[in-house]
């Protein structure tokens, strides 16, 4: 059984092998270390000329990669911790993501920026955040987050093949997780319907369509692990049936699968690890409010991190980040109405 880490690593090997335009840039990515989270392990040995270990210069890493992309290469930049995306924001927002449209569609910027986000490892306020929400809605940028259901490596290959810049957000806790297999384990009762291309997302419905689902859980990345666990407990202990809409592409995003699910359940819970205020769930709810035919009959709630930095101390970090318990609690409240 392969892990998310192995899947990502294998896909980088494959991409570099099949396309000589693919370059890697990042801090401490050379073997034997192979990167802070080992996603780039083995690549500098296999492709020494195309793996560029860089100084600690995040803005330049992404800027240089963006220039390479404009001129026909397909660079993949690694930012060691997602918290440092603030340092590359200008290169993404005012440079890479703008070029194509600003130059009247005459250029392409096939750039991938990969970065690990998320907490729960006790790394404290500057190494634990989920800052992707700051990049959602940036025109010209695709934001993609792998999960354990789809093939993360395939998503990464699609990101590399994408002619537009992609921010590829990897939750740290996903790396060691095994990839799920349909019809196995806690997925056994679910029918899995893919949607979207090339970054495939999924709707998980009960195979038995006669079952009336009570609630839709919308999530992405690592929070799919929590949402699945919560859905299982809600089913076993409360006989509450959940559908899960699992997004791989966060921005821009497809609303229809969510609208369909909501039409069945009339209840939606969004789950994210970024801060609540003006976050991912807020945009989803706003779009549904605009598009749903019977919005007034539906009930909504968002589970997210508290609007605080992520503390180092475990009890504080646990209280700040969403958990299986907070999802269940919110789901029960939603189902009471």
């Amino acid at each position, binding site marked *: 059984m392969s892990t998310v880490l192995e899947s990502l690593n294998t896909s980088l090997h494959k991409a570099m092998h099949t396309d000589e335009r693919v370059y890697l840039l990042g801090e401490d990515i050379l073997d034997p270390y192979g990167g802070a989270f080992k996603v780039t392990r083995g690549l500098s040995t296999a492709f020494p000329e195309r793996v560029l270990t860089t*100084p600690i210069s995040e803005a330049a890493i992404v800027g240089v990669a963006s220039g390479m992309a404009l001129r026909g290469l397909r660079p993949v930049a690694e930012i060691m911790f997602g918290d*440092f995306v603030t340092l590359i924001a200008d290169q993404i927002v005012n440079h890479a993501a703008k070029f194509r449209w600003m130059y009247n569609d005459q250029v392409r910027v096939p750039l991938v920026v990969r970065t690990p986000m998320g907490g729960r490892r006790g790394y404290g*306020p500057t190494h634990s955040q989920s800052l992707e929400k700051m990049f959602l809605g940036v025109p010209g940028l695709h934001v993609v987050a792998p999960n354990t259901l789809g093939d993360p490596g395939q998503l990464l290959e699609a990101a590399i093949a994408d002619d537009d810049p992609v921010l590829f957000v990897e939750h740290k806790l996903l790396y060691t997780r095994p990839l799920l297999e349909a019809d196995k384990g806690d997925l056994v009762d679910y029918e899995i319907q893919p949607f979207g291309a090339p970054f495939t997302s999924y709707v998980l419905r009960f195979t038995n369509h006669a079952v009336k689902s009570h609630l839709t859980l919308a999530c992405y990345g690592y929070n799919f692990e929590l949402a699945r666990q919560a859905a299982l407990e809600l089913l076993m202990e409360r006989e509450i049936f959940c559908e899960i809409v699992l997004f791989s592409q966060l921005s821009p995003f497809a609303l229809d699968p969510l609208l369909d699910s909501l039409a069945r359940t009339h209840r939606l819970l969004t789950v994210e690890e970024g801060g609540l205020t003006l976050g991912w769930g807020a945009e989803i709810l706003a779009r549904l409010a605009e598009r749903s035919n019977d919005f007034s009959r539906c009930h909504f709630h968002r589970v997210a991190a508290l609007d605080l930095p992520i503390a180092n101390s475990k009890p504080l970090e646990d209280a700040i980040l969403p958990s299986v318990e907070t999802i269940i609690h919110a789901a029960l409240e939603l189902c009471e109405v």
Partner: protein
Amino acid sequence: MPDNYALFRTMLLIRRFEERLLAEFSTGKLVGTTHAYIGQEANAAGIFSVTDPGDVVFSNHRCHGHFLAYGASSPEGSDPYRLAAELMGKATGLVGGRGGSQHIHWRNFYSNGIQGGILPVATGMALAEKVNKTGKIALTFLGDGTLGEGALYESLNIASLWRLPILFVVENNHYAQTTPIELAVAGTITGRFSAFGITTLERDSTDVLEVQAAALEAVGSVRRNGRPVGLILHTYRFSAHSKGDDVRDPAEIARAREKDPLLIHAPRLTDAERARAESEVAAAIADAFARAEADPLPNLKDER
């Protein structure tokens, strides 16, 4: 100025504190991460032996040694207890468990875990001391790897342009995580400062007395002239970057250990003094960790 005994005691306190921490991490008692200062003790001990407790310090991810030496320069002396409590995530920690290893604050001491980001902030602190006419200076620390961050050069330019009382301490331990300086730094370190008209002092030494002498000159110059200075200290860290992987050549580490700052300084003390330092430090650390361990964890509800 502190005597040989005090310098030794400060370095030993840092050494034993960091050793204890690494041990606690490896037995799983502590979680998260840490960056040990082992090997670089002469820098912090030397520098903070010539600063004023009112001077303002902005330190980086490798801040425990700086903090313990800063504490040692305060009238009450250094107390590792609240740092230990912070690392254990306790409510009594330096910042109540919110920050942990890289994010601490006590009196005029601050640290943060973003490479380079602290440098403009420290520059602004120097400006505040200047406009408030306090006569105090700002000190900030960066490693060789952090020479890669553009914010450094924006800070050097402004500090020089506006004549700000700040000491930039570059601790060149020749590696940034796993990246040797040869793969990360073009040109020279001094050249970076001189490009902005900032004078530098450079020492390739782990002898605390040599570092102290250089620091005395550098700190004195910043205070007298109200202008920035770069203090470049070539050094080596003996332990891994944080907790785990170390890709450096063991023979290289062994060679560096021959210049252990404790070994260099120890002969300047009597046997009895060394034994006293060992037992004082052991007692202080045992007490700090025992008290910290017994302390309560924070609770978000209490905080609101």
